[in-house]
């Protein structure tokens, strides 16, 4: 797979020769290579059951690969070391908020674990709440919030808990369609502000195109290569862009990539 050469320098994430399978099952990944550059927003698009979440668990150091390397940040730490150092912000599919903590203390969890005092952590959270559309919720408990608001808190917690690489695992998949659109625009806006490196998992084609600089498509199984589509849409973006011709063209290309991969997989199986 060839990378478009925008800037040279250290990578935010470099995966080489990754291989993983659960015991007694066919491999999910085999000799998988891909890179993410600092400040990039990259989506991985794949159907359910292809091991997207497993990939994230590998990148977050919750699972160990059977072969290959995962290097994170300029120093090239392994996934396990990087998450110990708090370099990874992992946002799981479910919001996983602690029901016994307020919004403020939920969001401060990562800072607290990183060694900040409770007071300092709370101060940092309070500073960011308005920018994320969460002002006034700091003393609320998770069950008092809507699904979208809970995901915002979860995102903020990841944002504060990790430094170099953010892994977002289908964060909006459980939301209703209208809330999801709102959250996608929200994420675009927040990302413009913070410009963090984000790896985003989704099975929603529109979502991937709307948000990303690049979309990586995993169509075959096991995942050995990822087909790539550069999304050359101007930023800042809003949902309006999804109605334009450029977007439709990219969508056609992307669906083509998915279809080709799927056909190849079908052919491979028979």
């Amino acid at each position, binding site marked *: 797979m060839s990378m478009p050469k925008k800037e040279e320098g250290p990578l935010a994430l470099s995966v080489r020769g990754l291989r993983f399978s659960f015991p007694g099952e066919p491999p999910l990944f085999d000799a998988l290579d891909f890179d993410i550059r600092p400040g990039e927003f990259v989506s991985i698009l794949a159907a359910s059951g292809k091991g997207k979440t497993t990939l994230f668990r590998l990148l*977050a150091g919750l699972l160990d690969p059977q072969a290959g390397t995962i290097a994170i940040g300029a120093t090239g730490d392994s996934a396990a070391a990087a998450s110990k150092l*708090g370099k990874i912000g992992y946002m799981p599919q479910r919001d996983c908020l*602690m029901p016994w903590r307020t919004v403020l203390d939920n969001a401060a969890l990562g800072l607290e674990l990183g060694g900040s005092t409770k007071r300092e952590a709370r101060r940092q959270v309070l500073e960011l709440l308005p920018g994320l559309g969460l002002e006034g919720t700091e003393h609320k408990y998770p069950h008092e919030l809507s699904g979208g608001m809970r995901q915002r808190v979860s995102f903020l917690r990841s944002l504060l808990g990790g430094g170099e690489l953010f892994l977002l695992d289908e964060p909006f998949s459980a939301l209703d369609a209208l809330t999801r659109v709102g959250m996608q625009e929200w994420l675009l806006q927040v990302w413009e502000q913070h410009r963090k490196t984000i790896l985003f998992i989704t099975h929603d084609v529109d979502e991937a195109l709307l948000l990303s600089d690049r979309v990586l498509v995993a169509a075959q199984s096991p995942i050995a290569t990822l087909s790539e589509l550069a999304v050359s849409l101007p930023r800042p973006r809003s949902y309006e862009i999804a109605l334009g011709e450029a977007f439709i063209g990219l969508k056609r290309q992307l669906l083509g990539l998915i279809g080709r991969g799927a056909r190849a997989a079908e052919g491979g199986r028979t």
Partner: protein
Amino acid sequence: MRRSLSAYGPVLVFGLLLVAGWEAGTTLFDIPHYIIPKLSDVLVSMRDNGQVLGKHFAVTLGEALLGLGISAVFGVLAAVWIESSGLAKKTVYPLLVMSQTIPIIALSPIMVMWFGYEIWSKVAVVILFTFFPIAVNTADGFRSADPDIGELMQTMGAGKRDRFLKWKIPSALPGFFTGLKMAAAISVGGATLGEWLGGENGLGMYTKRASNMLRGDAVFSGVLLLSAMGVLLFLGVLAVEKAFLAHRRSA
């Protein structure tokens, strides 16, 4: 206020009806005082023996509280042990669950053999009654901790200690309180039983002695006070639980 009235109103009225029925029924059907004494006689007996009853009440309450406290400490320690050791989870936990089916009353005389007729045999019986619900429910509370939250903390660099303090313990609190409420409710029964097995003090001893003398009014005043003690202990735990878990969504 209005809400609590509509919630507790019916049960209050029903309780008053029962009290009135007791007084009226015993008078109307002329029931012998050693079968069911009149409520008014019971209250009179309670007033006349107020000082003695107060002393015995304090003794039994002390036994129940002491036993509850010791059970809470060791029940929680047992649950932590089960949670932190895979071997204990496979060996101790199943035994603990199975032990719930043992008729604990049958074991109580052993406590008298071991600890004599002083307060400690009563406390031991209370512990026998209350240790298991606290240990099992707290262990279940630990087990109910959301594993996704634990993994998330791991990706944030949280070590074992942080995960235990900030994830496992808060997750186990509801289970612990469920166990403590059950334990509080039965602790008075344990203390009473301990006193029946031998001793000089406590409401259990008082009711047993009164029943030997066929003094219905005295038996009933002891039983009423024991019931009140059980309810008070339960409500006390409930209040502490509410204070701790006030902001969680009620399950």
